[in-house]
């Protein structure tokens, strides 16, 4: 049932460029990017029970990977950029993860926050290498070998690049779906539910957490690369801890207990923020207020809400 709904949604997203104005379509791009990044984040948070306040680190690695590879090293193939950035992200995740998965709850959060800010500090201060607070430009990559030179930036973004990202989201979501329903996924959930019991049932808790952490880094980097290509720039704010906080916000908004929650959250947040920014300069205040409402009243997020409504609908209709 849910899969059917998801496929419908996917089809709807795919045809958006034909329906919406280019401005709105360029809003969907970050939503796609965040959807991917958050699918990875939720593997760690929703399924494994580890709250990272440094996921933005991997998003930033993806962004700067795209920037450095395209503008400094002249690499234009988006596939290569994605592969290398994601690879770098996983390479960074492994040592951090080896350290971090020994801890849970708040200590995991603080440690990941520290690593994220470490990277931010590096990006900010080492001007010669990283462009400091301006960051590094991201040049338009080629998609599956095609450069589309005749298209101007916006047309390319809402055209070939858009469809490419939708396809990427579909593929990565499918992979994640298989992952969470696999024995590996079951073990992750077991470690979340009761770590000690999981160990007594033979689950290698730390090892699996490390794998989940690395996978989340992979997805985060891909999301970051898409974000950077969209804006044309990779800047240090990608790695700031409040960006990590926003990622958590989006996930909770969409509902972390649900596979599709992160995607719902990414889309909702982007559009919510866009609306709020248009309405008032104090949009952060309202965003914060909404987060409080969410935490206090709707901890299962939007997808939790729809699940409840769905259940109520089914109960009230005669069978």
């Amino acid at each position, binding site marked *: 049932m849910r899969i059917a709904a998801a496929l419908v949604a996917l089809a709807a997203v795919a045809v958006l460029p034909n329906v919406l104005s280019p401005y709105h379509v360029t809003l969907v791009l970050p939503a796609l990017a965040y959807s991917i990044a958050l699918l990875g984040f939720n593997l760690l948070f929703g399924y494994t029970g580890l709250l990272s306040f440094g996921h933005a680190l991997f998003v930033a690695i993806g962004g700067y990977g795209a920037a450095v590879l395209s503008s400094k090293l002249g690499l234009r193939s988006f596939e290569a950029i994605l592969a290398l950035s994601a690879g770098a992200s996983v390479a960074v995740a492994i040592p951090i993860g080896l350290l971090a998965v020994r801890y849970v709850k708040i200590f995991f959060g603080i440690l990941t926050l520290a690593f994220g800010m470490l990277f931010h500090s590096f990006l900010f201060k080492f001007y010669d290498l990283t462009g400091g607070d301006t960051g590094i430009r991201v040049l338009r990559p080629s998609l599956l070998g095609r450069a589309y030179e005749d298209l101007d930036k916006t047309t390319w973004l809402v055209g070939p690049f858009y469809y490419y990202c939708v396809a990427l989201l579909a593929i990565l979501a499918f992979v994640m779906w298989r*992952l969470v329903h696999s024995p590996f996924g079951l073990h992750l959930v077991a470690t979340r539910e*009761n770590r000690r019991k999981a160990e007594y049932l033979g689950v*290698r808790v730390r090892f699996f957490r490390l794998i989940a952490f690395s996978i989340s880094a992979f997805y985060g980097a891909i999301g970051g690369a898409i974000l950077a290509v969209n804006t044309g720039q990779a800047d240090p704010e990608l790695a700031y801890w409040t960006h990590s906080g926003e990622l958590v916000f989006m996930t909770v908004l969409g509902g972390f207990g649900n596979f599709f929650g992160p995607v719902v959250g990414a889309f909702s947040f982007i559009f919510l923020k866009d609306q709020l920014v248009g309405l008032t300069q104090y949009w952060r205040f309202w965003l914060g207020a909404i987060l409080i409402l969410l935490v206090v009243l709707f901890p299962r997020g939007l997808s939790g809400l729809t699940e409840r409504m769905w259940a109520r609908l089914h109960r009230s209709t005669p069978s």
Partner: protein
Amino acid sequence: MSALVEAIGVGKRYGDFAALDGVSLAIEAGELVSIVGPNGAGKTTLVNLLTGLVPPTSGQVRFKGEDIAGIGPVMLAKRGMARAFQLVHIFPELTVAQTLAVAVVSQSSKALRFFTAVADDAAVNSRVREVAAIFGLEGKLGTPSRLLSQGEKKLLDIASAFALSPEVILLDEPTSGVSSADKHGLMKNVVDAARRAGVRSIILVEHDMDLVAEYSTRIVAIQAGRILADRAPAEFFSDPGIVAAIVGKRPPRMPPGAS
């Protein structure tokens, strides 16, 4: 024949306090050994040593001839020993089937399979159903663990240890919290299931002396960190000194044909 589980002169000190001192114990295949004794006598420490949770400060602990000092629960399960606890541990959100599947999968080579759906795995599913049936839980396979009754949770806890297909299973007060009427039924189930499942020995920690008398092939009494006695039930309960120290004045009901 080398013993399945052995403790050789083990001692465990915490600072100045000797929780265990010079304890030697061998458990062979086919035995059901009960460990009894008052609280604080060192039963828990001994059990933690035998299951590789803590290393001994002196002496050795062996399982199937290999040293298992402090190897931890994960390696223990891999080597073939399972432990079920007195306090019920469950995975609240996981169903009965999923809980059992965790154990079944971790023992197979499938743990690191990323792509196949657990729900579709016929081998896993049939083993899960098998174990559930032994404990009467087959009707609750789809129920989330947090919705089970306390007794059912207890059964699930023991069942999940069984689902590991262990060679040795250590049951830590399995009938605590179970009503008196159900105790014998549970024990009988567990012992029969163990036999059928190919479990080679059972180590039992119990306070209920009736159960101990009925099911043990051997009883080990611990007192003040030392072994007080290590005898078959008949000899154990016919020794008034031991009975007084461990049981109190009245010896338990002995099964017919014993003594």
